């Protein structure tokens, strides 16, 4: 039975729409996107964080760099009152999306919902900065651990 109680199991979802369907941008371009939050029922969202960042993937520890960060706390601008939003940010000159062998760099937009009395929920939407081809090893990899 669905109810507004704390025990209710939510299935939040954030649907995003980038201004460019290919989701590929050049450095220093402006990215615009709209989002729609669904599946939160009557649960009260106390904060929404909207951020754009790059993070590293691969063998090393994850690093990340934030390019845009915004924290919305006005209840009128949050679900269940408002389920839609849009924002824009300008990309820096670097880093670019990179598909290496042991180092990869990805760009994404994260929309994080902080609920009252529940665990927070984060939705990640990847896009590309630049158009570098993935690395293909032309030679025998030389790995040196130390």
């Amino acid at each position, binding site marked *: 039975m669905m109810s507004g109680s704390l025990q209710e199991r939510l299935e939040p979802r954030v649907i995003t729409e980038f201004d460019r369907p290919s989701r590929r941008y050049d450095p220093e371009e402006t990215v615009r996107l709209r989002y729609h939050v669904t599946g939160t029922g009557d649960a009260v969202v106390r904060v929404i964080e909207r951020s754009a960042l790059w993070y590293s993937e*691969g063998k*090393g*520890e994850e690093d990340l760099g934030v390019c845009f960060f915004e924290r919305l706390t006005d209840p009128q601008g949050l679900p269940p009152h408002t389920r839609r939003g849009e924002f824009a940010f300008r990309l820096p000159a670097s880093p670019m999306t990179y598909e290496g062998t042991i*180092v990869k760099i990805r760009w994404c937009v994260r929309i994080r919902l902080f609920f009252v009395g529940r665990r927070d929920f984060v939705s990640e939407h990847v896009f590309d900065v630049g158009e570098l081809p993935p690395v293909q090893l032309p030679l025998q990899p030389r790995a040196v651990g130390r």
Partner: protein
Amino acid sequence: MVSIRLPRLFEKKRGSRRTGSQAWGRAGEACFYAALLAAGMVFTAMLGRRIVEAPGGLASIGLWMWLLTLLLPGALLSIGGSGLARLIHGWGRSEEGMAALRRFPEMFQPSGRASEAEPFPSVPPWENLNNSPGTILRYRLPLESPESWSVFGFGLFAVLWNAVVVLLAVTAGVGFVGGQTDWLLLSILVPFVAIGVAGVVIFVRALVLQTAVGPTQIEIADHPLRPGDRCDVYLGQGGRGMFRRIALSLELEELATFRQGTDTRTERRVVHEIPFAEWRAISIAPGRRFEERASFEVPAEAMHSFASLHNAVTWRIAVHVEPAKWPRFTRHFPIIVLPQRTGPALLNVPPSRLAVVGSGR
């Protein structure tokens, strides 16, 4: 239906990534630091009480002794207090929020925006590569030489190990002269001497290899470079005698640092190697050096140089040398490649109020 996730006793872990609940993890961390803080406070109170109750008070134990006894509770208080403060500071914040707060505290002001931008975030600074003028071309590149640190390490090991060996040998010798032969000490001394001799041999070999062939000098006409740029290179190789081969190549190396248990490991992998010059059967007369010029092109679709806390993508010029009488070696000279030009005004764009990037966490 209640859906409270209980903490698991076992979880996957690699470096700072964990599969468990962050909330439980933070709660555990908070308990740990709170316990340290409480222990520090209890110890401090106990010490204070003993000093107050002691006949003669503080003067009876002396100021220095009193400060010494405060060391342990002081350490507990500072570790527990700073840990708790860090947790409270980050409580309820996401990792993006924490990264943004560290890099741009002004974002959390009422204006809510960062105010300035680096021109090329996450590209390593290149000032140290451009501050040495060349003799033929514009910039003389510094040598990236992990081999020098290896030689230093071998030398340090040889000195310290042989100091222990000398100490043992003197002890054994004094006993022997005094008519008391310590066979146990002598049996320990034999492998110690062998390791000490091996240490010296390895150090001398590394030192000779490092210094015998002569220095390598690389100068380039322009720096930093961009994808698609062509650049002239000047090579100067010291030494004397015959060289079977000297070759130049442009290399792209990826570097990833990660933790395995309590160890921190670094893996390096060369993912592009573009040879651009090669000379064979070279003879260098005494007092002269081998000097040549060449040029290379940075691939048009190259990744730019990148460095964050645990990951890096680096470009470098590699000089591969094969002397006739010595083992072959490679010397590396790092360069910086900036991102591709995306428009004529790339470098003239005013700093964005929104687009600012931090690196690492």
